[in-house]
């Protein structure tokens, strides 16, 4: 292997940063014929690579390449629909192939960014994947025209069949693909994409492409990987965040022939390697470990809550938006409304626990990783193994859930490599127990919000003051983004500007501020990230203010939304579908909420009842959503349904208590998850405007909890200001 010069070598850090940068300006996926054949991505079957996105086999099978991660959210199918739409191929002959980060790197990132978070899977790649499909179509048609020696303009194509009407000749993509692959790619800027209103494949409720192997046990997740000679590892990291390993007594597990080694991992953890995982885990459970808890063992729920509460009194903030003078307006208002809200730490609890299989030799590192960002996994593999990126490869498998846990951190890759280095050229599969997964997550950050509003004599909102005191994800995970002490990410959903996460209300005097109060607990993005907590604070308080004003919560909101037609349209759509204002069965009450996140506008109406003994039943949720361009309406419905389950689980049960510096909920017996019996009927209304592209995996989760809490408020007459509901006496 020749050395890459220091100037041209892509540093790991630059690579990682690059994977999170916008891909605008890159010309993706169009210049394949110029790339040496040896550098081309390996395709499972013979076929001609027309361009990076499209491989066509002689039997007309169309393999569409996918860079983003599919972890349940339907992105694989949606991206394939977008490519196929422009390609004009036969959808029945479409299959997909996930490219690896090594392939992407070796081809100068022809497939762009692979990271799949922030509901970006489709909304930040729709343009170049559609141009990739269109470019392939243009080349395929040109190849047919060249063969028949006629002008390409005389050809038509449908379902991958190319026709020349004048001479009644037809051919197929499979027949011309090899010739098309040799042609120069068209300039992507010269391509005119279809009007979405003319879509035939995209925009439809098409079945997922990846269901079959999920029904018979044949789908291989990373946790299922089997390799010749493979060993398995179990790990325990100091339960107190920031603590280290003091000692462990290996003699207590001596004489277990299956055990191949005990290793300290990065000073903070201990791993046992054995021939099977269960034997490794059993030995680890039997291994006495003494931890050095260090300073953080003094931390608990009470100390953290006091730390956050102190933020309400701080004289400076870490980011704000303001117009007028909210504090003065509220002080002089005819009526004041005040409330303090709080939300807890939450774990992701993906069904497939963290795991990674690593095989390290002197000049090659390979890892099998369930990852939301395979390029970040590759960077972690390179960094941990000490081998350059081009000697590393990450083999893809679809994660068994992600929800933000498997993106930037890649902690389990670092651990697996550290362990596997002890067994050169031998694959070692590290699996975290559920308890380890719950003890060492990057949790949804904890926060509290102090809310104040002023109303005039007519019940009009004259001032709104929000102060959020809580932990910052950026401060923990990416301090460079906390510029000059300001961290506006924690105010997600309260943006002044439209486009990503804009607050949909106006008031003559408004102050919304963030006060950073960090804890020792590692934090990270959790499906919906800060829109979840911020929607609870804003939308539940909005109901409190509406009640104080003597107004219907929907009408009160509408009076503040004149400048926000897109927010208002989804709010109205949800209200209309749910029959807002119409009679309900006895004991059933409604609540409403709206929010904007990941560019998508969401609203929800919940119907709940609360029994005399305080037992809650959530009967129905109507979700309205404007994601701009719906790509697969059935998968949008699926994500809305899923967001209700994930959001409602958090609302009902979700909390990660901290005691003696460590997490105390370590499995599903205490970290309760909503089951089927509690699932309300979910109805999804899609009201697209086709003038932007929004996400779908996350946006709707933000409105689920506030709609339910507002319905509870309607049922009981009492606001719910802290979560989870299992700790709240409703009557």
């Amino acid at each position, binding site marked *: 292997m020749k050395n890459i010069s220091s100037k041209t070598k892509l540093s790991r850090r630059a690579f990682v940063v690059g994977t999170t940068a916008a891909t605008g300006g890159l010309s993706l996926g169009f210049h394949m014929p110029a790339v040496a054949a040896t550098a081309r991505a390996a395709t499972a079957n013979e076929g001609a690579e027309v361009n990076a996105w499209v491989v066509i086999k002689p039997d007309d099978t169309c393999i569409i390449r996918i860079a983003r991660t599919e972890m349940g959210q339907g992105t694989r199918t949606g991206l394939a629909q977008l490519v196929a739409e422009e390609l004009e191929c036969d959808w029945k002959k479409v299959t997909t192939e996930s490219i690896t980060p090594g392939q992407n790197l070796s081809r100068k990132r022809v497939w762009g960014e692979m990271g799949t978070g922030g509901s970006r899977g489709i909304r930040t790649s729709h343009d170049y994947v559609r141009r990739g499909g269109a470019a392939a179509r243009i080349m395929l048609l040109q190849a047919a025209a060249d063969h028949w020696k006629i002008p390409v303009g005389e050809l038509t194509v449908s379902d991958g069949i190319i026709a020349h009407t004048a001479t009644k000749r037809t051919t197929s993509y499979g027949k011309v693909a090899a010739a098309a692959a040799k042609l120069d790619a068209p300039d992507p800027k010269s391509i005119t994409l279809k009007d979405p209103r003319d879509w035939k494949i995209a925009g439809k409720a098409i079945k997922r492409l990846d269901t079959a192997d999920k029904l018979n046990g044949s789908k291989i997740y990373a*946790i299922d990987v089997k390799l010749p000679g493979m060993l398995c590892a179990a790990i325990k990291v100091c339960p107190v965040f920031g603590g280290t390993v003091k000692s462990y007594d290996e003699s207590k597990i001596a004489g277990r022939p299956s055990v191949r080694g005990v290793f300290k991992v990065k000073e903070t953890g201990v791993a046992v390697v054995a021939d099977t995982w269960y034997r490794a885990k059993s030995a680890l459970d039997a291994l006495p470990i003494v931890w050095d808890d260090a300073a953080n063992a003094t931390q608990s729920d009470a100390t953290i809550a006091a730390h956050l509460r102190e933020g309400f009194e701080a004289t400076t903030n870490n980011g704000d938006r303001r117009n007028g003078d909210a504090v003065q307006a509220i002080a002089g208002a005819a009526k004041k409304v005040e409330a303090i809200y709080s939300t807890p730490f939450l774990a992701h609890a993906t069904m497939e626990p963290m795991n990674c299989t690593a095989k390290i030799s002197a000049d090659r590192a390979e890892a099998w990783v369930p990852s939301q960002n395979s390029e970040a996994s590759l960077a972690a593999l390179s960094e941990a193994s000490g081998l350059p990126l081009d000697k590393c490869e990450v083999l893809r498998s679809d994660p*068994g859930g992600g929800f933000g846990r498997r993106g930037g951190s890649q902690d389990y890759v670092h651990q697996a490599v550290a362990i596997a280095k002890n067994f050169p050229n031998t694959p070692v599969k590290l699996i975290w127990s*559920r308890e380890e997964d719950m003890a060492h997550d990057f949790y949804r950050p904890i926060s509290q919000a102090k809310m104040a509003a002023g109303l005039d004599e007519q019940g009009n909102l004259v001032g709104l003051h929000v102060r959020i005191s809580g932990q910052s994800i950026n401060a923990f995970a990416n301090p460079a983004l906390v510029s000059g002490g300001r961290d506006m990410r924690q105010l997600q959903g309260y943006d002044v500007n439209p486009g990503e996460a804009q607050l949909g209300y106006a008031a003559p005097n408004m102050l919304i501020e963030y006060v950073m109060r960090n804890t020792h607990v590692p934090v990270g993005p959790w499906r919906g990230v800060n829109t979840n907590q911020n929607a609870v604070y804003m939308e539940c308080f909005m109901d409190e203010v509406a009640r104080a004003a003597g107004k219907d919560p929907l009408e009160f909101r509408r009076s503040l939304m004149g400048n926000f037609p897109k927010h208002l349209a989804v709010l109205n759509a949800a209200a209309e579908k749910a029959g807002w204002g119409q009679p309900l069965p006895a004991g059933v009450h409604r609540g409403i909420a709206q929010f904007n996140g990941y560019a998508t506008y969401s609203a929800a109406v919940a119907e709940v009842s609360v029994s005399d003994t305080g037992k809650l039943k959530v009967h129905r949720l109507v979700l309205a959503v404007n994601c701009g361009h719906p790509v697969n309406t059935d998968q949008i419905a699926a994500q809305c349904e899923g967001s209700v389950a994930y959001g409602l689980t958090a609302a009902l049960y979700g909390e990660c208590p901290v005691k003696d510096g460590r997490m105390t909920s370590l499995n599903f017996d205490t970290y309760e998850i909503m089951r089927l019996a509690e699932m309300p009927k979910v109805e999804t209304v899609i009201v697209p405007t086709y003038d932007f592209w929004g996400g779908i995996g996350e946006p709707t989760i933000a409105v689920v909890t506030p709609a339910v809490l507002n319905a509870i408020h309607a049922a009981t007459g009492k606001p719910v200001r802290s979560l989870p509901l299992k700790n709240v006496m409703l009557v």
Partner: protein
Amino acid sequence: MAKLNINGRVHNVQVEPETPLLWVIREQVGLTGTKYGCGVAQCGACSVHINGEVMRSCSIRVSDVKAGDKIVTIEGLSATSSHPVQKAWAAIDVPQCGYCQSGQIMAAAALLRKNPRPTDKDIDEAMTNICRCGTYQRIRAAVHLAADMPTGGKAAAVTGHKV
């Protein structure tokens, strides 16, 4: 040493008697469709049939499995994904990430075997496995759809396709 009848085939495995059946199925027998999710019988990702009853294999010691017990895993439910539950799951596009679905399908198949026409309440009580993606609404619909299929409840009474 344990002798296990899994999907109609007898496996002799060398394993410590306290090993959970789940890990024997996954690591000694090599059938990985049955999943690890919690290890404490909470999530149901490890659900298999033992003599027709749905059981959470993570919490059954292999030494407690009797020689005559017939174990069926997701791989043995049908030869060609033709079980009514599998067909209904496909028709409704139930799975998202899919990780819990082996267990969900095994639980649904066991429910229909005993109760070919389950009510919503029956489904509430029988389908207690965790799905983090939140496919519960479609699972309910798919159980009803499977029950409505001509061979619904009856065909659910499988004894294990050999794999």
